[in-house]
């Protein structure tokens, strides 16, 4: 029956075609089989039909965990033509409304692949590979790529395979755009980053995404394991849990789709999760867990013990978590360390706020190394592009300026200021909140116009002429600035002016607030002077209390390496302990050694004793290294 000839004709044809079930040889017929095959494939996650279109990846065998461990290499195979026979037969599944799942081994240019239409359920996926991507931090790498790529995209299943980093995208235009930026991004060492794009089948975590009813079951099962009072979720030994046996899903956490589903349930149901126990789940890598930073950022206690993590590099993938307590014992990586000390410090590099490891309290970290701030988010940049010569000039200026400023005698700063320069100082004013007492030394010079309303006072507190300025600078307490913490914004340069502001931290090294760390922002307007130095016309200094973060990142003044005078009576490990204790506590090595000796060389005990005595003020000043 042909009704409404033109318009319906196409529809009619399709209708006819799909009825043609019994044509094993006809192309359309086979496609129908493919459809139904696919249907089965979806429902039964563990029963795969062999032969024919051999598409099931090796990983979906029962003991996935085992396969996963060894199959880093074979992962690659998953997304290339599964069946060599396909190539030989030159067969290509092609039907309107169905995506082309056959993947030609990259010989065929991307364009020809694009000719096939897209199915809304399976769509077209692309695999993006960054060879040597392993050496880049995930955040930096993805942010760089996102910011260079002209098309926004959502990366799926990002993970590392040997030296490569790879992920998937669904959008063809994104894939093209990513191809375009290959060799366009430079890394820190000026190497250009290559990006390879190829078509691929649906990534497993998407294809094997848990169906809604499975998610529901998972959610109920997880609810049973959640302790509301502790905000703790106990997922240990999930692999072996008889509780899941009645469900028709196996929650194997080392499978990407299960981990993703688990994190999704956590995000939706336990948003303020504090503690997560993943003990004994055969985790070989933490690529899947890395999404926890977006899904459950509040987690502070994490148990990864008795898994199969081989290297601390796995921890790199989750170091965005601000962990306070971590369990790692029972992982192969623990055996790779020479001593407890090196183990602890290696782990601490990833989680600076860690206070308990494997159930043991860690000695408080009194000073920490400076972390290079990771400023790669597209919206916040460390510094804008200015000429190198200019930057150098400013850096040199700041080094010289603060050398004198911190020296204890600020008189020589007279040479840095113009005769008619201006200087003023401010501290924050928050109504109903008294200014913190650590800023006491700055109260009387505070010219914050928000709470200083008298025009005469405003005039008086503005220091004018270099002599006035330097006199008032000399009155401020002695400081030690941390030049490594400085961030400089150069906001104007012209022939006559170079204007910049400096943000950073400093310590008070004497006076009532000795030891306090303050943060500051100092705005300079300078003019080039005759001897290629800079002459300050305006100087505005804003001082505030440093945040906890800023305080932690402030490094202590580098001290000369302690010379241990007791010599060879100490063992190698003991000498190491003394050195580390000395750096961490700030005490001279002789004193550090005494403290350790008195506490039977129990580092943790010694640290606690030290902290107690220090808090009680019992340690004489001479015990500490001179800060000059």
């Amino acid at each position, binding site marked *: 029956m042909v009704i409404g000839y033109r318009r319906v004709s196409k529809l009619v044809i399709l209708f006819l075609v799909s009825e043609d079930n019994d044509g094993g040889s006809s192309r359309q017929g086979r496609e129908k089989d493919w459809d139904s095959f696919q249907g089965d494939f979806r429902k039964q996650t563990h029963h795969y039909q062999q032969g024919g279109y051999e598409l099931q990846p090796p990983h979906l065998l029962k003991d996935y965990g085992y396969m996963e461990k060894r199959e880093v290499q074979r992962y690659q195979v998953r997304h290339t033509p599964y069946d060599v026979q396909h190539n030989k037969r030159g067969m290509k599944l092609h039907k309107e409304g169905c995506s082309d799942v056959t993947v030609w081994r990259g010989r065929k240019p991307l364009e020809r692949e694009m000719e096939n239409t897209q199915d809304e359920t399976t769509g077209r996926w692309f695999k993006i590979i960054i060879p040597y991507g392993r050496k880049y931090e995930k955040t930096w790498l993805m942010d760089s790529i996102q910011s260079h790529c002209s098309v926004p995209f959502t990366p799926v299943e990002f993970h590392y395979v040997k030296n490569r980093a790879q992920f998937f995208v669904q959008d063809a235009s994104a894939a093209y755009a990513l191809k375009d930026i290959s060799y366009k991004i430079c890394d820190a060492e000026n190497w250009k980053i290559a990006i390879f794009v190829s078509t691929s089948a649906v990534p497993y975590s998407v294809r094997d995404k848990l169906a809604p009813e499975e998610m529901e079951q998972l959610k109920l099962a997880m609810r049973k394991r959640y302790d509301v009072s502790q905000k703790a979720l106990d997922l240990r030994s999930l692999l072996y849990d008889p509780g899941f046996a009645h469900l028709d899903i196996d929650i194997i956490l080392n499978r990407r789709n299960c981990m993703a589903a688990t994190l999704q349930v956590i995000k939706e149901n336990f948003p303020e999760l504090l503690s997560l126990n993943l003990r004994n789940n055969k985790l070989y890598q933490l690529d899947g867990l890395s999404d926890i930073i977006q899904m459950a950022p509040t987690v502070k206690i994490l148990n990864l013990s008795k898994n199969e993590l081989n290297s601390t590099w796995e921890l790199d993938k989750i170091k965005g978590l601000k962990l306070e307590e971590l369990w790692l014992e029972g992982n192969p990586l623990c055996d790779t360390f020479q001593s407890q000390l090196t183990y602890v410090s290696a782990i601490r590099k990833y989680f600076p706020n860690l206070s308990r490891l494997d159930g043991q309290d860690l000695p408080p970290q009194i000073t920490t190394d400076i972390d290079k701030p990771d400023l790669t988010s597209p919206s916040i940049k460390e510094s804008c592009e200015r000429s190198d010569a200019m930057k150098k000039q400013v850096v040199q200026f700041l080094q010289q300026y603060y050398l004198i400023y911190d020296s204890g005698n600020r008189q020589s700063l007279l040479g840095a200021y*113009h005769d008619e320069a201006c200087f003023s100082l*401010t501290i*924050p004013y928050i109504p109903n909140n008294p200014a913190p007492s650590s800023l006491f030394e700055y109260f009387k010079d505070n010219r914050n116009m928000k709470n200083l309303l008298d025009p005469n006072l405003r*005039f008086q507190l503005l220091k004018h002429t270099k002599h006035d300025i330097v006199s008032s600078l000399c009155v401020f307490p002695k400081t030690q600035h941390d030049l490594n913490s400085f961030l400089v914004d150069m906001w104007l340069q012209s022939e006559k002016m170079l*204007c910049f502001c400096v943000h950073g931290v400093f310590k008070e090294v004497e006076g009532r607030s000795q030891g306090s760390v303050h943060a500051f922002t100092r*705005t300079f307007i300078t003019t080039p002077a005759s001897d290629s130095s800079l002459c300050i*016309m305006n100087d505005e200094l804003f001082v505030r209390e440093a945040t906890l973060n*800023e305080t932690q990142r402030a490094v202590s003044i580098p001290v000369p390496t302690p010379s241990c005078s007791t010599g060879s009576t100490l063992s190698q490990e003991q000498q190491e302990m003394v050195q580390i204790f000395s750096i961490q506590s700030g005490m001279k090595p002789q004193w550090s050694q005494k403290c350790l000796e008195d506490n039977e060389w129990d580092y943790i005990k010694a640290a606690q004793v030290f902290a107690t005595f220090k808090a009680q003020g019992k340690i004489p000043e001479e015990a500490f290294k001179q800060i000059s």
Partner: protein
Amino acid sequence: EILPGENGRRKNSVCLAGFTIFLNIWSSYSRGNRTREEVVTPPLPQQSVSGSPMAMPVDFKTYVDQACRAAEEFVNIYYETMDKRRRALTRLYLDKATLIWNGNVVTGLDALTNFFEVLPSSEFQVNMLDCQPVHEQATQAQTTVLVVTSGTVKFDGNRQHFFNQNFLLTAQTTPHNTVWKIASDCFRFQDWATT
């Protein structure tokens, strides 16, 4: 989080642009040449012939008072405009003004207009203000004031950031008054390292 380029805003801005144009025409009509978004102070005294430093104090205080008045007026108008009448904000800037926003350089009125359009809605609270007159030697005889502020801001109702900001304001003098405009603007979150 605070990424320029959120496409959602485009739709609304097209509709509002027309309305705003109408509003601008109407408001400039009704107020004469001056709009709300102008920082205006009484005219500056005649510049003294640069004499010895001893002659400065009298004039200097006048400069300081002038600077304070301009700074206070400016800061009130600037942040209110930023929060409530964002589209008018660029009127406070010179044509060739430069903004450095957390390290991103934005130069010229067109770029500034785009930037402020995509910047999410803001809620500023200033808890520090300071200002200094800038010596003419640096500014080539154009009266300039350095304004430094600090406080808190919420973008799109999200978490609060502490910020530091400084401006260079230059004076455009007329016989009747002085109009101050922003020559440069530098803004940064205090938590730049951890955001």
